[in-house]
Every structure is written in C-alpha cells, then in structure tokens.
C-alpha cells in the first residue's frame, strides 16, 4: 500500500512543474551547462528514444526520459545539428516531438510528455528517506536504491535483488543522499561520471509501480545493446551503446 497521502490531489499545473515541463522557463543564462557547444549531431530516420540516448552519450549529458507510447514509436526524420549551443540542440530535438518538453533537473536533462499521467508525476515526486549506496556497478546501485524507494512505497514488504556483473564491469562512485524525491534520486544517480540515463515506464497506477521497478538506468560507458524497459507496454525496442 502506498502510504504517502500528502501527495494525493496534485493539481495539473503542479504536474507540469513537478515534471519539469518548463522548457519555456529559461534556466539562468549563466548556467555553464548551456554554454557548451554541440559540434555535430545527426539523426536521420532514427527511433527517437535511441537517438536521444545517443545524443546524451555522445555529448556526455545525463538524461532522464519519461516514456509514453507516442515517444516509444516516434522517429526523427531528419535532425541535423552543427555547432549549436546545447540548449538550441535540445530545443531542436524536442520540437520534433510536439508532445514533449525538456528541462534541466538536478543537472540532468529530463524529457517528459506534456500530458503525463498523474501517477507518473506522483511517482517522480514521491519522497524517499535518506540513503547511501556504496561503490558498485550502476545496476547494483540501482538495485540498492530500489530497496529504499520500495520501502517508502510499501514499508510492510521486503524486496529481493540479484545483479550480474563481471570483473570488467565499471564501478560507479558511492552516492549518499538526504531525503529526496524519486526523480532527484534518479537524476543524481545518472549525473555522476561517467554519466548515464534513466528511463521511466508509463505509470498509470502508483500501486502497480511498486510491484516491479518501473525505471531502468543506462551506463553510457558500458558497450552493448540494451533492451529498453516496459516491453509489455511499449513493445520491444533496443538501444545500442556501441559506437559505429
């Protein structure tokens, strides 16, 4: 059972703020993040989610993506970015996805739909207790954080974990957070070197979100092909971290 009644009744205009749907709310122009220049990025007839992830990986920009069915099936027909500021590049990407906006949250660029379900916003703004994870693979740190998130969603239940790794798996530094929202936890996790992305599956019922971890983290430094999450909702899609 979810036990955080203080978040019930979030009104729509707060949803936009919680999800950071404020591309129109220009961040401070002096933010060094926006002074970076994208030398070159092209996406031609490429599925949108893998293309956005590739953008983040190639430019070492931590990303968060709130998935919906539309984004999952969307493709970029032709995106050509040459020597443009990061903000312009992100605007160009999101303009090709009319129902999506991006925002910078805790150092992570988050793409989210304008009309995200209320349960999605509620999940991302869910308060979790202070918690720390030791140095480990990003997958292991994700498993540990899920122990804590789930403990706040269903405090009467326990959570099991199992994580495979190899001697070559990249270890991420430890992370210790005070009380935070789920979104801040995800943003902080992927915002460290070597950088990564989080992907949140569509959430229509926060009770169901507690049954199975609804997000996946991607380590930009790990080569391979990653199956994107929530295939039951969005179909099978994959994202290749192998550079061409």
């Amino acid at each position, binding site marked *: 059972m979810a036990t955080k009644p203080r978040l019930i009744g979030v009104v729509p205009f707060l949803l936009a703020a919680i999800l950071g749907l404020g591309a129109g709310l220009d961040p401070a122009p002096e933010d060094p993040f926006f002074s970076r220049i994208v030398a070159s990025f092209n996406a031609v007839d490429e599925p949108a989610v893998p293309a956005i992830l590739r953008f983040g990986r190639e430019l070492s920009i931590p990303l968060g993506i709130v998935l919906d069915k539309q984004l999952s099936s969307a493709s970029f027909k032709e995106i050509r970015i040459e020597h443009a500021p990061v903000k312009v590049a992100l605007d160009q990407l999101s303009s090709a996805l009319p129902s999506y906006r991006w925002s910078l949250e805790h150092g992570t660029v988050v793409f989210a739909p304008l009309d995200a379900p209320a349960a999605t916003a509620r999940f991302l703004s869910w308060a979790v207790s202070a918690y720390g*994870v030791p140095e480990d693979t990003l997958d*292991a740190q994700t498993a540990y954080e899920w122990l804590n998130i789930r403990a706040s969603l269903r405090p009467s239940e326990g*959570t099991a*974990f199992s994580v495979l790794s190899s001697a*070559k798996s990249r270890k991420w530094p430890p992370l210790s957070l005070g009380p935070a929202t789920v979104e801040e936890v995800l943003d902080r996790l992927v915002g460290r070197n070597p950088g990564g992305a989080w992907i949140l599956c569509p959430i229509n019922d926060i009770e169901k979100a507690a049954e*199975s971890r609804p997000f996946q983290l991607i380590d930009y430094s790990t080569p391979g092909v990653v199956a994107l999450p929530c295939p039951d909702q969005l179909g099978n899609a994959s994202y290749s971290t192998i550079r061409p």
Partner: protein
Amino acid sequence: MGKLIRQRMPDKNGSVLPPDLMMGSYELQDLTDRGVGNLYEGKVIVDKTYGHVAYGCAQYCGYGVDPWMYWDPILTATGGEADQDVWDMDNCTSSDVSVLDYFPDWGTGNHAIATASVHVITGVAPGSTTNFASGTLTVGGASSYKCLATPLQPSGPVNVQVPTDSRIVSQISSYAMTTTSAPACPSKQAGWYRQVKKIVTDQNTPPGDITDDGSVISESLGLTTTNQLNLAPPNPFAPVTTSGGGYCNDQFGFCNPLCPGSSGQTDLNETFTDKPSSGGTYTLKTHTLAYTCKGDTDNGN
C-alpha cells in the same frame, strides 16, 4: 682445431686460420654417412695449456617418439572454433616445444561432432570424438644413436560442450545487511547480502567449466510459493559478458521489515540464459535461491 691453426693448414679454397685466432664458431659435416649421419660433436678442448673446454649439443637433435596434442581434451562449443597444437620433447634442448609445422594433415573421428581444418577444430554438435594429426618428425636422441624421419599421428579427445548449468566457483562475500552495512537496508529493515563468482558448466558428468570469455549471460527471476519473508521478486538487469576465463559475479540478497527476527524463508527461481561467443542461445538449469534472515543459498550452496 689447434693443429689446423698451428700448422696453417689450408682448406679446399686455400684459406688458412689466423695464428692468433682465439674464438669463433664452427660447423662439423659428416661427408660420408648420408642421412642423419652418426657424427656428432661434444666437448671441444680449446686451450690445452691453461685448460678450457666448450660444450656443444653432444647428442642427436631429434624429437621424442611420442608427440602429443597440446589441448587434451580440446574443448569447443557447437559452432565454435578452437586452435589445436602438437607438442613434443626437443632432445637437443630437453624442452617441450611446438612441432605443429610438421603436421599438415588433420582430421576428427566423427565429423558429425567436430571437424578439423588444419589445426582448427570446429564443434558441430554436442558430444565427444577424437582429433588427430599426421606428419613426419625427425625422431631420436642420445640413447637412440640415430635420428630417423618417422611418420607419426598424435591424437586426443575432442569435447563439444553445451552450456547446461552454472556453478559457484568462489564466494566473494556474505553478510547480514543492516541500516549501516554496505550496501545498506532501508530504515527499519534488515536482510542478507551475498556475492559469488560463477561459471557456466557443460553437459558432461562431472560437469566441465566453459571458459568462454565473451558469453552473454542474462537471468530471469521469479518467486515460488514459499514467500514467508513477503518479498517482491528482483527485477532483472541488462545481461553481462563473461570475462577472466568465463566468469561472472552474482550479487543477490534482500531487505525486509521481518528480519533479523524472522525464521521465515523465501525461495526464488533463478534461470540463466547463455549466449556463447560462438553463437546460439542456451537456457541453463534453474536454480533455487533460498533467502532467510541468516543467509542466502543457491541450490543449497
């Protein structure tokens, strides 16, 4: 040698050795005994006045009579390739060396299980057969008094492995999880953490390790009806690629509000899927992970 120098005896071309010659290399040729010959050099006295000798090979420089397959048995997967080699004792240096170049012809005992292309053995189907090589080797040593060119055919077993199961190779750590351990349990919860090193094993009895680096291992996990600790099942992560000789690490455990006081147990089914670097997809035997407040086991281990 000293006589040749002192008496300034010319060779067939009229050249003589310098009178102050102190060192140099030389070669002995047996001009009358054809074939391998029976002339061999051993100790050469180079300074009769003050006493100094040099030693050469002092024996027939052939190979041993019983070359062997370097990989015995040689292991490969279905569709996989493995490089075989032939080794033998070099009687000149008393060391084992590769004599692969002397064996140009290769074969296997059952082409339905494995084939050979020169020294590359390719797995065709699970099972066992033999691999052999044919060639001619100069065989002989000090005790044989002669070195003969000898046709030989070393052979050995081939084992085409099938990924069938996995086993724990070693335990890396195992301890109770608390709110202060690393990793930690959330507030008001406790549990158990364990990390082990695993390797995929084959179909044989006893199972053999498959030391394939580059295999992609993924896992699926599910709760059984035994869930006294009221756990939610783990969510699987991206597959991992084996390294260091076919190894991967498995970290597993849990946290819940019933520990550390509960005597309950939760069992999960863990199934690995293996995609070897040589191709194919294999679902390995399902293991039972048993979680209690006092420890985690994998098939009872």
